[in-house]
């Protein structure tokens, strides 16, 4: 399906990542936003509040982020594409109802414009310290999808992708921006509506009595949804449940339900995966990065190549699910993986796990507040190439 032209601001824009994200959401079909203001993400909600009245969208500023995420989960069951947007402290408050949305398998998008943490941390300055929270932040076992854009253009493009992935896998998608990308202003080209591919919600077509809110087939597939208010009389719960949505409190039901939540993502990892690679095939060193750090790393990679080093890059656009199989393919060929990130070591742990000691893994940490000095990354590349 193509995008509804009403929501597509076709043309060349000079806007920041937050605004581009809002445009991407509207172009991507989002018509419900519940949020609570927090720097550096507020501009997303502000732009949506301004634009929604012209596109038939429903905006509400809730009393907090607990409420915002809960309202998104509720709204999604009425058939609308829904999202919320926040940053660190709000992301923490959203965790419980992110779990609810995960358990209820509602498609939705949660934008987190990352800032320095923990706690109130650095409200106005960048960070990438929520990457493990994106993976493990809510309690229990589950898998979600996380995307990391590195430019305002990608904030537009990938927000649409985020909505499409949410629909395809009936899952909350975490849009993990960072303050730099959110506040960086660049050219953003918004194409014509008929050039934008939209995945619509898959609605159930059969007899009302036969509808089941869930399908646990074990093959990574998900069942269709319905719209509340149309007589399906569904029951859905955050409790462990069967395919009817009814609570079942025992180990077997838990195994079926939770494995389904994990399988539908991990069995489809290669389909979900979006990574950008450059010169990895004959590389001695591969720099793995995401978000704003990928742009800083580029400078280090250019410098290293100028020195004659064989350096490849892998940019994680989908960070979760982690491209484990791809790392397996590369780990025997390279000497080292260099992982710069604006935290003291999060995604590097995942790289290390996948590399399993078959190559060196070198972290280039940064506690947040600014981006890396490219020389620090260059030094790590040189060390890795030894």
């Amino acid at each position, binding site marked *: 399906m193509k995008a509804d032209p009403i929501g597509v601001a076709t043309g060349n824009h000079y806007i920041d990542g937050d605004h581009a994200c809002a445009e991407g959401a509207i172009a991507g079909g989002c018509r419900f936003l519940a949020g609570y203001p927090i720097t550096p993400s507020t501009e997303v909600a502000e732009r949506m509040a301004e634009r929604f009245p012209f596109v038939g969208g429903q905006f509400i500023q809730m009393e907090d982020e607990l409420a915002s995420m809960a309202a998104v989960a509720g709204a*999604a*069951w*009425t058939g609308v594409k829904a999202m919320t947007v926040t940053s660190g402290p709000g992301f923490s408050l959203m965790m419980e109802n992110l779990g*609810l949305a995960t358990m209820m398998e509602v498609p939705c998008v949660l934008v987190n414009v990352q800032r320095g943490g923990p706690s109130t941390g650095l409200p106005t300055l960048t960070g990438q310290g929520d990457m493990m929270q994106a993976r493990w932040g809510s309690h229990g076992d589950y898998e979600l999808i996380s995307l990391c854009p590195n430019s305002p253009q990608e904030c537009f493009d990938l927000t649409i992708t985020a909505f499409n992935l949410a629909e395809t896998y009936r899952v909350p998608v975490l849009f993990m921006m960072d303050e730099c990308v959110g506040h960086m202003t660049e050219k953003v080209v918004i194409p014509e509506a008929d050039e934008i591919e939209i995945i619509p919600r898959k609605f159930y077509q059969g007899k009302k009595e036969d509808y089941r809110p869930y399908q646990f087939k074990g093959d990574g597939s998900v069942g269709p949804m319905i*719209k*509340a208010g149309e007589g399906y*009389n569904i*029951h*859905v719960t955050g409790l462990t449940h069967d395919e009817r949505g009814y609570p079942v409190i025992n180990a077997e039901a838990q195994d079926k339900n939770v494995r389904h939540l994990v399988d539908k993502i991990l069995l489809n990892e290669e389909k979900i995966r979006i990574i950008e690679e450059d010169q990895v095939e004959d590389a001695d060193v591969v720099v793995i990065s995401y978000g704003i750090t990928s742009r800083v790393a580029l400078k280090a990679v250019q410098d290293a190549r100028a020195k004659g080093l064989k350096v490849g890059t892998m940019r994680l656009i989908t960070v979760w699910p982690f491209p484990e199989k791809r790392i397996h393919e590369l780990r025997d060929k390279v000497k080292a993986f260099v992982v710069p990130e604006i935290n003291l070591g999060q995604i590097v742990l995942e790289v290390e796990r996948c590399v399993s000691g078959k190559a060196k893994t070198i972290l280039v940490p940064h506690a947040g507040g600014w981006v890396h000095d490219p020389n620090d990354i260059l030094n790590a590349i040189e060390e890795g190439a030894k």
Partner: protein
Amino acid sequence: MSKTAEQILSDELLIPQPKEPLAHPMEGYLRTDRLPHIWCSTCGIGTVITAFIAGLQKSGLERDKVGVVSGIGCSGRAAGYLQLDSFHSTHGRAIAFATGVALGNPDMKVAVISGDGDIAAIGGNHFIHAARRNMNLAIICINNFNYAMTGGQAGPTTPESANASTAPYGAYEYPFNLPFLAESSGAVYVARWTSLHVRRVTNAIAEALVKPGFSFIEVIAPCPTLYARRNRLGSGLDLMRFYHDNAVIDHNADTRDIDIEYQKKIVVGKFVDKEKPTFLENKDAVLSAKLGDKYIPYKGA
């Protein structure tokens, strides 16, 4: 001489009479495939469910357009037994979740059935803000004076001096007066009844369901297993007898004056029933005035 509790119950209980014999008198409204339910015998929650179904039937609303959301707790299991679009959300977030449903599909009337802890403690913020916005929701708060599901801890409505597992020597916090909280936060309909007043509760639920905006009904209900046992108040029937003898109907009561004291009189009634534009009515009014024809109201998915 006062009536026996059994007489009161048979006088008051209102079960809609089906024309055809049904497997269960409320078949079609109850998820009979989920019975038996989890509630203890003589618990007051079931009565509220009965009243809800009767109230829904009485309201004349199209059943498919009514949804119900619960939080977590014994009362929070209500959604799980109602044959409607029913959502069992997280502890305290029922009203926030319901806000999403109500805004997502503005043609629906969404009810919230949940406990005193769920609505007034962990969910207190959502409660006052949904009332402030006059969100189109009917809130039914089953107040059993304690956190029953987790074993009878003290909560925001536990009367002073009542015992609870986390107030083993008697509670010493000031409890909420929920109708006052609701009214002062902006609710357009506020009532308090006990689970003895089945017909009143039924009517209140019917009224709340058809009333646009934020309605609040507190239903005082027995938790015989925990609250009553710990306080040696007897069975559910004994509590019904207590309600009979101590509930005072006063529709004109000022909600500021209707605090509940431990085992004292309980003022019940319909305290507030007024008109005020809802959240969506206000939104539409402001945006149409400002944007004219350019404004496209949200019409649902």
